[in-house]
């Protein structure tokens, strides 16, 4: 059963260089009790989508319902069934963790006693008992995110919106937050989260919508998206980058699409249909051409490959700087890309 439904969301902003389409006909559908990840670089429209669905921004066109409530017609009723947490919907630094949660409870009209009980309960559940009565100002990044998330859970909402919940967190805090989100979903909460991290979408989401230019450009489970790119990728690392062009020619011969060259020019990879056979052929041709290899192998595609394939840009290149536009796939990106590649050694 669908609990979040959005149709044809359009939002334009005026800017000096003309109107900017923050959303350009975005459709979204999230079944109850599942986790949907909106994946895309900065400026893709993820945050605007969340803002429309959480009643913060009105779209120019389109419609949205949450739990059967028309978000645009009845924002007040919508706010009763949602919880929002993320980089923008923040907590007050001068208030203690407890005071923040109590205030939110009061603003949900829980009543004094119930609001305080729930605030204390959440502080304890989120392992903030010791720090709960200190101003949030002195909290670590991970503690801040936890109190922020707790703020979204004061009334145990049916639908939870998390806008980049772990951006800027250290790996340990990230894992801890992932654990909390996983537990919530087990108990039946529907989650819509935005992220720039492929790993996060991979870990948490039942379903991923890849967003670029204000619309959904691909949708499916992590595995479905990876299949779109091809079953395997053949990767070769060259001893010297001089042999790059010849290696690209050979990989093009056996690959499904354009080979991708790493920024240092020494690693080339390409999607293939029949992994082992293609690898053997590639290796034979490389040997015949006298190209020396540092390493070679096959790997499963990552969501990064999916994104690169769909948009012609790598997420990691774009993640830090919305204005940066990297070249088309296969050319040298402006910033070095750091792919984590586990290679199976060829025999």
């Amino acid at each position: 059963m669908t609990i979040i439904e959005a149709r044809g969301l359009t939002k334009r902003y005026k800017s000096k260089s003309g109107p900017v389409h923050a959303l350009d006909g975005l459709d979204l559908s999230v079944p109850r009790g599942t986790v949907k990840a909106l994946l895309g670089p900065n400026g893709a429209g993820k945050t605007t989508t969340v803002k429309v669905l959480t009643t913060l921004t009105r779209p120019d066109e389109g419609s949205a319902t949450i739990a059967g409530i028309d978000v645009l017609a009845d924002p007040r009723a919508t706010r009763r069934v949602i919880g929002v947490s993320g980089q923008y919907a923040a907590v007050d630094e001068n208030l203690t963790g407890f005071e923040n949660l109590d205030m939110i409870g009061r603003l949900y009209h829980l009543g004094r006693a119930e609001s305080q009980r729930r605030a204390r309960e959440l502080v304890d559940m989120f392992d903030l008992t010791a720090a709960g009565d200190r101003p949030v100002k002195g909290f670590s990044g991970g503690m801040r995110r936890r109190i922020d998330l707790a703020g979204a859970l004061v009334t145990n909402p049916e639908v939870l919106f998390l806008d980049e919940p772990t951006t800027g967190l250290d790996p340990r805090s990230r894992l801890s937050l992932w654990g909390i989100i996983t537990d919530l979903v087990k108990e039946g909460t529907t989650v819509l989260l935005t992220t720039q991290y492929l790993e996060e979408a991979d870990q948490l989401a039942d379903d991923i919508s890849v967003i670029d230019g204000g619309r959904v450009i691909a949708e499916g489970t992590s595995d479905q998206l990876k299949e779109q790119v091809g079953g395997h990728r053949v990767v070769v690392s060259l001893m010297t980058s001089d042999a790059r062009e010849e290696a690209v020619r050979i990989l093009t011969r056996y690959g499904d699409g354009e080979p991708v060259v790493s920024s240092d020019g020494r690693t080339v990879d390409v999607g293939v249909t029949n992994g082992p056979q293609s690898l053997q052929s590639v290796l034979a041709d490389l040997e015949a051409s006298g190209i020396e290899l540092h390493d070679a192998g096959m790997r499963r595609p990552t969501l990064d490959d999916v994104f690169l394939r769909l948009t012609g840009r790598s997420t990691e290149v774009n993640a830090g700087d919305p204005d940066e536009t990297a070249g088309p796939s296969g050319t040298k990106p402006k910033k070095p890309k750091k792919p984590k590649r586990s290679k199976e050694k060829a025999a």
Partner: protein
Amino acid sequence: MTAVIAPGSPRVAPATGVASWFSDGWAVTKRNLIKIKRSPDMLIFAVLQPIMFVLLFSQVYGGAIAVKGTDYTQFLMAGIFAQTVVFGATFSGSAMANDLKNGIIDRFRTLPMSSSAVLIGRTNSDLVLNGISMVIMMATGFAVGWRVNGTPLEFLAGVGLLLLFSYAFSWVMALLGMSVKSPETINNASFMILFPLTFVSNAFVPSDTLPTALRIFAEWNPVSSLVQTARELFGNEGSTPTPDVWTQQHSLATVLIGIAVMLVVFVPWCIRRYESISSR
């Protein structure tokens, strides 16, 4: 970390009626007051600035500026009060701009609360801050020889009028705060407006001493009417003749009209603006 959602998880009551409007406003006011309590720098500024102004003006200019029928300190105090409450109201603007930037407004706007509550909480708590400033200023004034010559009722009316004016002006500044791109802008912009507004008035000198153009501005300046009314209510006007301009002859009516206009125009405008703002 198990069972994040407790068995007896709370249910949200529908937010309707005056009761929820009142409790929402109080919840936000309380939050702002806690903030004042926790930021000593803010409180120190609110206390020291009026002390500084009272001492500076009464001691530095007191000997140089002559006022007919009374001494400068008596004449000055109503002006200092008016200047301080007008400047104090700008805090509503910078605080709204800060809350917007920090994402707190976004949090509030995703809660099923009354849409005027954040603004009511803001202007309420700034009224409290302004009240504290007033008490400090009066104490300082008494210490340097200021005396009230009106009746206790007139004195209270004067204080009430000054605070009411600052409350209404808070709404004007709150709208500005929601319209600027950054909190820094509001601080710079408000000084550009408030210095002329408070200095080109009868707050620090009798307006008849000013060059013609400035004198006309000062006589029609609502701050002058506020100062004139407060001065009369405190019995500090001395024998300086009241300028023969309607806004000065009927200064109380002018101030009340000014306050009413500010509230009628800016309260609904602020609420409408609030309902559509977001951090980015």
